[in-house]
């Protein structure tokens, strides 16, 4: 069959192209524009070259925020993924319990992020918060405003509370797709509970787990609202993650140049990690 060449078709792509340009490309280019210039106000800009990038890559503040963020992502993944699998395995497979569990699980996901932050901010307060005051009454020295460790614990528990459901729902979807015959065959083969998990459930959950890990990593790497509401990045800089630092720099200090350079580095890190995940996921697909 002969191919028909018709370049008019390109016009059909134009609306999408315009949309993407306005929503992504133009803002991104603005950031790039800021990142290579310096300003002292009055809308006057001076060429700065790659100075801001140099500064940023040699800034302790940036590396510390990055380390904190990576540590945070690692901890919440290490908690949420096993916990999510565990809850999904123990959820009912049929009956009235299924919709009840699903709704309960979906609830934290439906709460706006700043509300989640506010809930935990109040919940943890030593003077009026249920958690904070109870701990104080029990004689435990807990204060997320003063103690960096307490602040971390609060932010991590908040994230686990907020997002484990997502892992649960994804795993549950993977689990219910396993035909009964697999469990019956495993019984016939005399498989232990662990073997059933290791050889039937885990392999069937692998793909949704990869997606869960990817989503949770991305989200935790960009986390802003909840810790900002609870701790505001403190005490000190102990819970200042990348995005909080970025907002402080850009909006708080109005350092547009460094903030723009940091944005681009941040963006490149996310791009790189997405690529790594994408490669891992597609290569594991190819093995099947």
């Amino acid at each position: 069959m002969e191919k028909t060449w018709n370049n008019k078709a390109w016009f059909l792509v134009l609306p999408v192209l315009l949309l993407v340009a306005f929503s992504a490309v133009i803002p991104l280019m603005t950031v790039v524009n800021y990142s290579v210039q310096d300003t002292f106000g009055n809308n006057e800009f001076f060429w700065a070259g790659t100075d801001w990038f140099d500064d940023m890559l040699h800034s302790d503040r940036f590396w510390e925020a990055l380390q904190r963020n990576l540590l945070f992502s690692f901890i919440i993944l290490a908690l949420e993924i096993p916990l999510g699998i565990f809850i999904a395995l123990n959820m009912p497979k049929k009956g009235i319990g299924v919709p009840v569990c699903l709704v309960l699980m979906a609830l934290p996901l439906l709460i706006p992020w700043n509300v989640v932050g506010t809930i935990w901010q109040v919940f943890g307060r030593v003077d009026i918060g249920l958690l904070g005051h109870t701990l104080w009454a029990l004689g435990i020295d807990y204060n997320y405003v003063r103690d960096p460790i307490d602040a971390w614990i609060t932010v991590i528990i908040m994230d686990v509370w907020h997002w484990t459901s997502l892992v649960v729902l994804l795993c549950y979807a993977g689990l219910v797709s396993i035909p009964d015959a697999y469990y019956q065959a495993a019984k016939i083969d005399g498989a232990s509970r662990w073997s059933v998990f290791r050889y039937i459930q885990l392999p069937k959950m692998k793909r949704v787990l990869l997606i869960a890990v990817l989503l949770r990593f991305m989200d935790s790497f960009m986390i802003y609202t909840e810790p900002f509401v609870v701790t505001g990045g403190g005490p000190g800089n102990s819970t200042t993650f990348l995005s909080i630092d970025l907002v402080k720099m850009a909006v708080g200090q109005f350092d547009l140049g460094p903030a723009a350079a940091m944005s681009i580095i941040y963006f490149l890190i996310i791009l790189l990690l997405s690529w790594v995940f994408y490669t891992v996921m597609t290569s594991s697909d190819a093995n099947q």
Partner: protein
Amino acid sequence: MARITLDHIRHAYGASPQSDQDYALREIDHEWHDGGAYALLGPSGCGKTTLLNIISGLLQPSHGRILFDGKDVTNLSTQARNIAQVFQFPVIYDTMTVYDNLAFPLRNRGVPEPEVDRRVREMLEIIDLSDWAKRKAQRLTADQKQKISLGRGLVRNDVNAILFDEPLTVIDPHMKWVLRSQLKRLHKQFGFTMVYVTHDQTEALTFADKVVVMYDGQIVQIGTPAELFERPRHTFVGYFIGSPGMNVLPAKIDGSTVTIGDEKVSLDYAPNISGVGKIELGIRPEFVRIGSEGVPVSITRIEDIGRLKIVRASFAGQPISIVAEEDVEIPSEPRVTFDPAAINIYADSWRVGGEG
């Protein structure tokens, strides 16, 4: 290897069954011999799989007991019953190698590794997958997968019974034939009790020594293929076994004379029909002779299926099928006779014999 006794088994899936209709299995009370090859045959939804799962222990019957060699196993788990079962859709542990798949049921039971190795290698030979041993059990064809499933069932040589739940449904017709003969050979070699569920009568008849025909939650007949063909105990068996199925014609009986419509056919015995019921005459198409003698019929259609012809006709207003040899001449005014020895009389769908 074991003798399986089904002691008044009844099963209902819903809670608190009221009438017979609520039971998936009405009442099963039979004994299956050690080393026998049984085929459970019946249409979809007749309770075959339910019965199989009750035997293997995946289901607990609502009533009744199951005994292996006279020992009550009703409350034992599937593992404790030591049963192998192969399912309709192959179950493969695809993160393991083919070798490990076969070794899995043995290792789970703590069989020593040299013994595992010996038996797995032997089984790989039998199912003809030796070359695949070290490969991950992925990207296999349907029949390779089902062979692995079969292998996992057969690799344990001490099982009480092997149950097959329509294992060849997903296999190509050609491979079906090969696998079926391999199974028959293995059965002869090892002598395990074998229960084979199918809705394919050819499969059941070629495979089993005894065919168990199920209909509507009960066993309507257990017999050899020949018995099922010649003396169906229930009109359902007559209709379900054979192609085309048995002709079942509403009839009236007076002594040893059967009246169908206005036509009379005489029997060589007087059926015992003391109770009032629906009387039917059953005759297989193979035993209806077409020619110039007997009762006139009007032919509606003739299907040529190679060596045989299937004649669809109207006999005293009732549709009837006749199987005739290819070279039989069909006269312009055809008449049919019934082989008296092949006639079965049914009262309320169940076969009745002669008096005394």
